[in-house]
């Protein structure tokens, strides 16, 4: 959610009247993304205000000194030159910090998206596998029943059982293979789509690369082009002064403690498949 007034700045009123949507079904609390995105916005606004304040203050100091040194109001003293250099270096450092923070945000979002998609794909695959198994089983059972009750069958009980079993297995494997093939093809298509969109977003991201110098000083670099896709502009969360990377990731968290559980049952590659046979590992 991006709250903004006409000039794009956040106002105290907006902060007071903000309301967050509840989390998606199956999760506790408020919708995390909205909350974080709003926090980013507040942080950005705070940084802007603090920076404005700092530069105003510097201006006041400069003017104050000028009055004190009014013996020679125009001559710049070496002290002023140093302070000016400090300011220039500080600006450059802030710019560098912003680029690093943006890159980090971008990578964080990509990873989060990838993680979510992975969970969804695996959950979906598991559900799908379950359905396929059920269907294969019921169709194969029918085939076996048909075979077993085939009129005119002269063979004895054991032979009939074997034939029924064979029919069951044949049908089961046939249904299963058909589904598997269809499913893999869908997956492959997804991967191709994904690759294409990634290429597009990479191209867009490159076009959007920060352009740190006033035009002219780096004639050979193209000016930043407005990106053609939705990936082109930095996401709302990419505040330039976003929080430092999480400290001490040594004991990284199972997300269960830091965030509400995801709504779709997470995938399993565990022995949970004892109840449903190995095709649960289909993906």
């Amino acid at each position: 959610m991006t709250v903004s007034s006409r000039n794009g700045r956040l106002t105290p009123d907006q902060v007071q009247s903000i309301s967050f949507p509840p989390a998606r079904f199956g999760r506790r609390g408020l919708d995390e993304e909205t909350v974080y995105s709003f926090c980013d916005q507040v942080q950005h606004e705070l940084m802007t205000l603090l920076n404005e304040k700092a530069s105003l203050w510097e201006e006041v100091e400069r003017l104050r000194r000028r009055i004190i040194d009014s013996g020679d109001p125009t001559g710049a003293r070496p002290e002023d030159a140093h302070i000016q250099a400090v300011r220039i270096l500080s600006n450059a450092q802030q710019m560098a910090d912003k680029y690093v923070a943006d890159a980090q945000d971008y990578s964080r979002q990509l990873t989060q998206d990838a993680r979510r998609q992975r969970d969804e794909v695996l959950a979906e695959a598991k559900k799908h596998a379950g359905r396929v198994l059920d269907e294969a089983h019921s169709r194969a059972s029918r085939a076996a029943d048909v075979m077993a009750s085939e009129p005119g069958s002269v063979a004895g009980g054991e032979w009939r059982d074997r034939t029924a079993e064979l029919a069951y297995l044949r049908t089961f494997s046939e249904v299963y293979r058909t589904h598997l093939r269809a499913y893999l093809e869908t997956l492959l298509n997804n991967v191709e789509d994904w690759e294409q969109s990634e290429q597009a977003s990479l191209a867009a991201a490159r076009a959007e690369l920060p352009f740190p110098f006033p035009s002219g000083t780096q004639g050979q670099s193209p000016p930043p082009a407005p990106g053609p896709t939705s990936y082109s502009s930095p996401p709302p969360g990419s505040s330039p002064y976003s929080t430092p990377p999480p400290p001490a990731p040594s004991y990284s968290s199972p997300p269960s403690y830091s965030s509400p559980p995801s709504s779709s049952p997470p995938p399993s590659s565990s022995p949970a498949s004892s109840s449903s046979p190995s095709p649960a590992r289909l993906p």
Partner: protein
Amino acid sequence: MDVQRLQESFARMAMHGDAVPLFFYSDLFLRHPETRDLFPVSMAAQRDRLVHALGRIVSDVEHVDALGGYLQDLGREHRKFGAIAEYYPHVGTSLVATVAQFNGPAWTPELAADWKAAYDLIAQVMTGAAAEDAAARPAFWEATVVAHELRRFDLATFRVATTEPLHYLPGQSVSMESSERPRIWRLYSPANVPRDDLTMDFHVRMIDGGTLSMVLTRGLAVGARLRIGSPVGTLTYEPGTGRDVLLVAGSTGLAPLKAITEQISGLPDPPRVHLLFGARTADGLYDLTDLEKMAARHPWLTVIPVVSDEPGYPGERGMLHEVLARSGDWRGHDVYASGPTPMVEATVTQLMALGVPRGQIHLEDFGWSEP
């Protein structure tokens, strides 16, 4: 030194927020460009750290005794960043210039003298501790990756070999830097007791957008070089209490507890040990196979895997603190817990509600040294 005057001048400066450390570092780098190389590209986190450390020192400046340990740690920890004694006066000069800049007309020669005296005292304690430390151990250990295994797309274990022996207590942590991300240090726990072949195992989970964890999980190959800092931390095994042991591990918080388990296995008369190992999903129990092997070898060890977010999981389901509440009477146990902070907090609360004395619960406390 007039402490109140000093603190007031600090408060006046602190009002300017991030502009203060920004000025300080720019001033330092302009006067002494060689110091820039001690810091990472992005200085945002560094500035917060400086403000935090300064605030702590200034608010306690009249109790130098209480500050002593903190400053000594600070001095020792700065060795691995390449901070050498001759840089300390440079920092002092820039610090005084910064306070002067932000005190404007309130700045006086007396204040300047106060600040200089205070800084000299601090620098003396820090460099003293650093020099003492330098006599005992290197600033950092060079290490080479000898094995790396991606256990899940975001979970890896790897083994490094150091060139010099690194003495640590099982359960402690060491900070680590990769040449891929210079000047970014993060703490990790060796998952083993110190070995004769100087190898150490580490468990890393990738943090989304995490600067170093991403490199350590997915960007490390055999042969990669790492730097390792001095061991820190107090999550170490206390032998001889006569009590049995409960280990509560969330995700890669397992590493220090695995080292402690290994340490216990070397005792002549090991206590009974229960190890609860929790993750969100079963594929997050990345080291369960190895733990089960250990449990098969050692009759005194029971491993209980716990999964919180996977309804179909056949074993223990729930959050670690919920499971430990229903899985035994732990009042007579020494407990060691490691994992994400909310997990550890929930565990402590639960254990105390169950009647385990706080003194029997051991946690990690990095103190200031959180990188």
